[in-house]
């Protein structure tokens, strides 16, 4: 299906349909020409056409219909926290009335700049759309926060407050597509590219008294390693996960473990990849680890690399072949957690201690 243009606005209904001068120094194409261009390729797919006022207002459609077939009209009911913009009381006029004659899909909706993470407007859109046999797609599957507005908090699919409303509604429908799902195969099941700051990664949140994650030890009070998004570095695209480890004294050690929790992915026969770069400093006799846990007991599989051998300033790829993990009960068809970890020798393992200084690593492109 093709949606001809996202959010038309500030042109007349005539320009909307037939094209013409935008009044901004350039010429617009009209929806009729765009529709005709689609059909000229031989495509008979559904074509979605958004209304004016940022694809909200479809009230002018009856007088300005695009000629053709398999046309669906699109609306974007976006509210504002003050409640005055595009309120439910205006929906009959703007798009509800058109559902009497045409298929309508709300291809975006939500509350803009909603710092309070309210859910009422989204629920009203869904209820109204259901009552008018209109479809909808919620903006957006992207962990950008409530002001985006986002339906997920992280790439693990944890729903935001509005996402909970959307997920609950989606769970209540049973309306499979006309075609059955494509058979799987090819392509990564996981891809963490760190091309933006919102990636759903976090430090391991437990502080094991023996392993003593999350910190530089001892002495107590030493600064913990920091985790940050770096927008300038990255491979292949800009954006990487930056870990900074600061040793202030001799005899300190570190365990910086960064986890992501996929929802039980089947990675049978796959190899987990990650890419790391020593940006600055040194990490003698430290290690980099790529790991994946499976099943309800989080059976551990990991591969270690000698971080001291990393050539400074270069990206180096590491692999964890999930099929080669020999842990008892390891089940790559149920991967529940993956992670990357930086650690120097641990006291319990008789490891080697570090000397004062700062080591900076960038991690990128964690995928299967």
């Amino acid at each position, binding site marked *: 299906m093709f949606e001809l243009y996202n959010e038309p606005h500030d042109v007349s209904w005539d320009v909307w349909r037939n094209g013409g001068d935008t009044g901004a120094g350039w*010429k617009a194409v009209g929806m009729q020409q765009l529709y005709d261009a689609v059909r000229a390729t031989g495509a008979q797919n559904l074509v979605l056409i958004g209304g004016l006022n940022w694809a909200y207002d479809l009230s002018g459609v009856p007088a300005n219909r695009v000629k053709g077939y398999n046309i669906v009209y699109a609306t974007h009911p976006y509210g504002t926290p003050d409640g005055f913009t595009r309120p439910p009381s205006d929906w009959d006029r703007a798009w509800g009335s058109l559902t009497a004659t045409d298929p309508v899909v709300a291809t975006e909706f939500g509350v803009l700049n909603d710092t309070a993470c309210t859910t009422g407007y989204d629920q009203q859109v869904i209820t109204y759309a259901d009552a008018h046999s209109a479809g909808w797609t919620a903006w957006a599957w992207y962990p950008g926060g409530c002001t985006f507005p986002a339906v997920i908090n992280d790439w693990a699919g944890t729903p935001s407050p509005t996402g909970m409303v959307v997920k609950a509604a989606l769970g209540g*429908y049973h309306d499979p597509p006309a075609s059955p799902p*494509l058979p799987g195969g090819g*392509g990564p099941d996981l891809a963490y590219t760190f091309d933006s700051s919102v990636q759903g990664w976090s430090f391991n949140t437990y502080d094991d008294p023996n392993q003593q994650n999350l910190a530089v030890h001892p002495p107590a009070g030493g600064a913990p390693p920091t985790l940050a998004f770096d927008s300038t570095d990255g491979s292949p695209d800009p954006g990487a996960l930056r870990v900074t480890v600061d040793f202030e004294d001799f005899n300190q050690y570190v365990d910086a473990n960064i986890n992501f929790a996929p929802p039980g992915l089947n990675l049978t026969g796959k190899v987990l990849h990650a890419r790391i770069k020593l940006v600055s400093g040194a990490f003698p006799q430290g290690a980099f680890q790529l790991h994946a846990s499976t099943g309800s007991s989080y059976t551990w599989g990991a591969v270690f690399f000698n971080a001291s051998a990393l050539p400074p300033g270069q990206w180096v790829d590491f692999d964890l072949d999930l099929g080669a993990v020999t842990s008892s009960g390891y089940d790559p068809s149920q991967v529940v957690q993956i992670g990357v970890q930086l650690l120097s020798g641990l006291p319990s393992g008789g490891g080697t201690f570090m000397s004062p200084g700062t080591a900076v690593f960038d991690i990128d492109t964690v995928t299967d």
Partner: protein
Amino acid sequence: MTDRRRSIERLLFWVPALALLPAACTTGGGDDGDAALAALMSDGDPSAVAPGAMTPPPPLPPPSRFCPSGDCARDPLAFWRFDDCNTLSTQLADTAFTSPISHPAFRAVSVACVAGIDAGAIQLAAAGDIAYAPDQPDFLFDHGLTVAAWIKPDSIAGLQTIVRKRFDGSSAFLLAIVGRKLTFAVQLASGRFASASAAIPAGTFTHVAATYDGQNAILYVNGAVAAKAQAAGTLAAGVGPIFVGNDATGRQFKGIVDDVWLNTLAAPADVILGLTCIRKPPVVALTPGTTPPTPPGTPVAFDLAITNPNGPSCPVDSFEFFASGVGFPLQPDQFAGVLSVAPGQTAHATINVSALPGGPTGPFPFSYTVADLATFNLQASAQATFVVAAPPPPTRTGCAPMPTAPVAPGGYYVNGNTVCTPDGRAHLFHGVDRPSLEWSSAGQNLSKGDFALMGSGPGSWNANVVRIALNQDFWLAGSPLADPSYPDTVSQAIAWAEMAGMDVILDLHWSDQGVLGSCVSTPTMTCQQLMPDATRATGA
């Protein structure tokens, strides 16, 4: 004036006049009565209380008046309502406007502005409290007199000037409390006096009025004739102010005075009765208060009930009603109208209101305001709520057994308002939007697992469609921003979505203004244009 009478005046000036006044109505002529009245009318030096008050006015002929009723006996020459009494000015406006000459009054600074029976009033309490109107060229009472006021005396003891018109060393007429009674006295050009008295209460507002028409001096209490004296003649004429609440001899009224009404003709009895009318704001109701949900275009008849709350001394008033808060999408058949309502009665107007078709739905409050045209500041509003019903949800056209339009392989067709599968099943799209390919040619976090989370697998969100946002400048080969791998990235994303059991809407999300690559998104600017540009419409 004879020497004998002057001596009596001087004598009586110091003697309480109440001891000498007859108990009931007196007609001038008897020496004793004249002497007492002369003493009563006599007054000291007005310059002590009203500087310059005895200066003769310019010798101009009195101008002709404009009297709204058509009969100047029925309209005041001056009307001091005291509603304007305030601490910033001692001036008290004349609100009559029937003469080109205005007749401002003034109060002593110590006179208090208080609430009267009809908005503002003046209260006299301290020694020396007085209000007065300087003499004016049209204060000519040779054709008669009407003087009226609301008073609330603290007591009815002693001798208390309510209103007095001075001339020379005496007074042309006087309305006063004398010996526990209300007294009206006039001095005629012949030198004779006439007076009439009646009882009034203390501590409550009483309307007092007096007229002289050249034959009779009539005293009214609360709009009814209370006493009458016959005395043919013409009121004594001469220069001097009108005093209210006190005089040059300190015969002070203590209490509240409101709405002093003055005319140079004798008003008829019905006008005096009308002066006792104190209007109140109308009582307004709009019913029904809330309509049942009503579809657009269907009128609802609202009853606007206007009650005239005034007492029986008030006339039938005209009330204007007007839409003071009726907005889109409500449409009334009457925005304004006028109804006449007698005191104590209720009149009704029917206002048909409907909602414009195609407008918003929901509850819409609206209001009408009603104003008494006799005193436009007396207004009241009533509100009601029109609930515009949502039109009934449309019925679906449904699907024919065989497609009624061309169908893309594995796709859909549209039949009426219904999206149909080729096997005749009505279908609705429910899913999520997947951004990032509009601002990043590689996309962000695109993976099979990511789409699997949205789609139909166990534990996922059960979306049956995903809308993927695209950017024309990443796709088109001629663009500086073109990424040769972009079409493959998009194809891969489509494949992953279809593996997860979802249809895909490809959305032309961002574009440029006709120059490929000209739109680079920044945090404050996206490449969302008004419309797609004409030069690249067909992907050339």
